[in-house]
């Protein structure tokens, strides 16, 4: 019997959390925007799509809180837990991205009859269907694994460790911004971006790379995390 697949099953038992809630939340955002678009003459573009991404970030955080003590308590190997969890998150990203691309395709044809851009957005939906899927997949997976990584910090080092981490991140960012400003670098960065505009698909590839780093970092954090 494969314990990694047991871990996947353990996650997927939570149908409410993985298959219903994300769409209920995205759906309610969509319905509100649909209502607004129906009353407004001009075409409407909204960022309501972000709701599902934020849900996935939270989902990543919560999944560790809910399932790690359960699985390790029932003597699951940490490595199996991590691989099973990342596999589950990859699967959820694959299927959610497919649904989003399909909804985007419908929207492109119909605009839902009210000139609403909710799923099919400039820039994000620039490429062909596969490119669009790739963009959704990359963002979704990095949100899930990013949330999981944040939760791993909490599991290993507690609340204070998490604060320390975020303080360190903001310090590094501040220093970086200061260095760029002190050297009048913003113009140069702006020019570079103008000359080499990254496509959404390229950004997504970057996000996926980030997911891999988050995944590996979570492994290091959970390796010796007690229950």
């Amino acid at each position, binding site marked *: *019997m494969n*314990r990694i697949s047991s871990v996947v099953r*353990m996650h997927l038992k*939570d149908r409410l959390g993985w298959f219903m809630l994300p769409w209920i939340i995205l759906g309610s955002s969509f319905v509100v925007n649909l209502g607004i678009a129906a009353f407004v003459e001009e075409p409407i573009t909204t960022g309501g799509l972000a709701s599902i991404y934020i849900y996935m970030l939270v989902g990543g955080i919560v999944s560790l809180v*809910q399932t790690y003590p*359960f699985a390790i*308590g*029932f*003597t699951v190997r940490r490595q199996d837990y991590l691989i099973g969890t990342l596999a589950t998150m990859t699967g959820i990203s694959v299927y959610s991205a497919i649904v989003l691309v399909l909804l985007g395709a419908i929207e492109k044809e119909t605009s839902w009859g009210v000139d609403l851009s909710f799923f099919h957005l400039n820039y994000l939906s620039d490429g062909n269907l596969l490119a669009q899927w790739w963009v959704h997949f990359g963002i979704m997976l990095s949100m899930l694994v990013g949330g999981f990584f944040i939760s791993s910090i909490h599991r290993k080092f507690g609340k204070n460790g998490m604060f320390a981490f975020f303080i360190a991140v903001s310090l590094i960012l501040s220093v970086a911004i200061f260095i760029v400003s002190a050297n009048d670098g913003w113009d140069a960065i702006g020019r570079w971006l103008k000359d080499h505009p990254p496509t959404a698909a390229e950004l997504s590839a970057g996000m996926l790379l980030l997911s891999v780093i988050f995944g590996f970092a979570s492994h290091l954090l959970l390796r010796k995390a007690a*229950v």
Partner: protein
Amino acid sequence: MNNIVEITGLTKKYRDQIAVHNVSFALEANKIYGLLGRNGAGKTTIMHMITAQAFPTSGELKVFGEAPYENNRVLSQLCFIKESQKYPDNYRVVDVLDIAETFFPNWDREFAYALVKDFQLPLKRRMKRLSRGMLSAVGIIVGLASRAMLTIFDEPYLGLDAVARSLFYDRLLEDYAENPRTIVLSTHLIDEVSKLLEHVLVIDNGELILNEDAEELRGQASTVVGAAAKTEAFAIGRQIIHRESMGGLASITFMGRLDAEDRKQAEQLGLEIAPVSLQQLVVHLSKRNQGNKEAIAL
């Protein structure tokens, strides 16, 4: 090799305290062990280390002959039921049983569902909404139905009434007879489980203070009951651990075996000899350990 757990010099330090100090013992296959001691004595920490959920500061720990950490050959044969076991919020009782079935290779589904009936658990109810007793019952069912070669119950019956607890003991003994395995019961309800135990380990203040066959242990102390003066006379020179009196009657408990001579003397004095409960013995030994510690400190 018949030892399924071998612990040598196991120590666990937290930042400001020593939870487990230089503990060594072995568990043999197919026995029921009692891991006894006061709350906070270090029992749970030891069990966490055996199941690789916490990590020793020093010392050696072998389970089924191997280090348990990240080792599926060991971990898949372990089942550790603890009072603080967490379950996902959205899980129902039936979900826990389904997943437990995939985690534990020896799982017996029929047995699990028979136990659900015995404990009258609502299968479709969410874990979040279970009462404390029902939550404990789920743990007990998982522990029994897992049939893991080493099954550890850590205070498994918080919130369970006496009827449910005796149901647990009955099912445990029945199933143990048919499917021998090693079972560790950690509890402070010592009297209740004492008849189940074949071997007793007592932990106090992070140290192992007793490691003894339960039968042997029962003979190590005795109680005599009778007229106060005669009882006192009989107890002279013995190591008294407990004394009770009521009117002209006294009951005195002391360490040490009674040989034929002693029994004859007791009979002549008209005293009755009564067995000593395991609980009394453990309480006394814990106290004595405390005393030794203080003496050393002085």
